[in-house]
């Protein structure tokens, strides 16, 4: 995208009918570290890559609990994401207070989208620079939505946003048809495998990712490091153990972790 004379203001249209400021905001989402969401009929898993500013600092929190039945993963300007998470928590708790009942995620997402739209139509505002993957439950089961800075929202079976998310999306595209009937464990495994795609060769460790689950009989919560590592261990072999040969879990032997180091975003991920 190149600079042009129509991109100074969010209230200026380009002759081709585009709002460049909004599109630039969507670029900001692509700069953030990856966040992934997938859902089955009864569960939603949100996962993110833990990126830290430096070795000295802690990593940024990208997944937030909105309510027992709603969670959100963000990518982009995390400050904007925090503010929107606070808005979502507020809406959710106000609804619970008045109706003693959980706010259906579909309705929350529409309010969020309308809030984002306002910022695309006021000269004194700027669009939120954050993409949100909202996972939650309502009467019809589990849902996953993606909210865009443009004010649009879409429902997904699975989605990935942020940097190197294309690799994860490709992985998900090949598997998504089975997700609806997936068990909770398989869904978590797929989420972690999708995260691995975005790492482009770095060894997958539980300290590198955050995983959260929510489901019909399971309130939103984060998986602890141990549980994540256990899932990783079922498909990652530590390089020294290569000689032990094929274990029962024939999937993904050590070789793939070395191949992935190509670093090229368009390399097709290896068969699982």
């Amino acid at each position, binding site marked *: 995208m190149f600079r042009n004379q129509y991109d100074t203001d969010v209230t200026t249209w380009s002759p081709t009918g585009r709002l460049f400021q909004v599109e630039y905001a969507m670029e900001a989402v692509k700069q953030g570290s990856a966040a992934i969401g997938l859902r089955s009929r009864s569960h939603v898993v949100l996962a993110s890559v833990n990126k830290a500013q430096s070795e000295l600092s802690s990593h940024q929190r990208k997944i937030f609990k909105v309510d027992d039945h709603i969670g959100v993963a963000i990518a982009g300007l995390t400050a904007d994401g925090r503010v929107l998470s606070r808005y979502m928590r507020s809406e959710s708790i106000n609804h619970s207070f*008045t*109706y*003693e*009942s959980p706010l*259906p995620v*579909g*309705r929350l997402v*529409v309010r969020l989208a309308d809030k984002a739209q306002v910022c695309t139509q006021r000269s004194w505002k700027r669009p939120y620079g954050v993409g949100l993957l909202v996972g939650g439950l309502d*009467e019809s089961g589990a849902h996953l939505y993606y909210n865009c800075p443009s004010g649009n929202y879409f429902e997904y079976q699975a989605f990935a946003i942020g940097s190197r998310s294309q690799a994860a999306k490709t992985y998900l595209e090949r598997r998504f048809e089975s997700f609806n009937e997936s068990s909770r464990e398989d869904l978590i495994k797929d989420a972690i495998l999708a995260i691995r795609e975005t790492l482009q060769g770095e060894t997958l460790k539980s300290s590198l990712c955050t995983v959260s689950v929510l489901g019909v009989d399971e309130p939103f919560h984060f998986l602890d490091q141990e549980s994540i590592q256990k899932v990783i261990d079922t498909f990652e072999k530590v390089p020294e153990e290569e000689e032990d040969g094929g274990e029962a879990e024939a999937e993904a032997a050590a070789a793939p972790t070395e191949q992935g180091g190509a670093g090229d975003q368009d390399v097709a991920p290896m068969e699982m």
Partner: protein
Amino acid sequence: MLLILWGVLIQFTIPIDNGDALKNAEADSQRTLYPYVTGTSIVAIKYKDGVLMASDMGGSYGSTLRYKNIERVKAIGKHSLLGASGEISDFQEILRYLDELVLNDNMWDDGNSLGPKEVHNYLTRVMYNRRNKFNPLWNTLVLGGVKNGEIYLGMVSMIGVSFEDNHVATGFGNHLARPILRDEWRADLSFEDGVKLLEKCMRVLLYRDRSAINKLQIAKITEEGVTVSQPYSLKTFWEFQAFHNPTAGAQGSW
């Protein structure tokens, strides 16, 4: 300080000067102090398939039984039934609030809908908030419904007290009907048995509550929906010996 004395809402404020007294009188015209046209008891029970709610069709103007065709039980949305005793105009106002609520809920058009639990809690919030402003909606409301197989029955009073139970009653019903229900209610009542039980309660109320009239409706709500019966009357028996010559023991009295 809020005090309900002999059915009248009294607010204790001490006017500092005459200006305040005038302000008080004006302020009083902005809030409900006492009810004018009132409905008497509602009696409701859970039964095997849902909820049954009975009320008579009377609207009293003080001690005068002025209106005899008031429907005090109404359907709310797809899943709920609301019955009210107390000020009829406030009941109508509540129906307007709920109409708006249900309309907005339908406008979402998204497969989610307000169930009886949500409506009950919404009403509790409304009643309690009005009470806090010293301007209550002078009703005791009964909210019953069925959604996704769950049968719900609850009550909210004019001061915002709210709770759920297997059987509820308002006003005189609390004193005359509930003891009967405590003895005879069962979870697996059939529709016919439920109606019989309610009629037993309503008959007692008819005999003993002077604001009751012999024209009642029974409403039923199940997973399938709401049905409100046509108005009908109960058979009563006045040939008890005690009524034949009531002044036998005290000549000259009536």
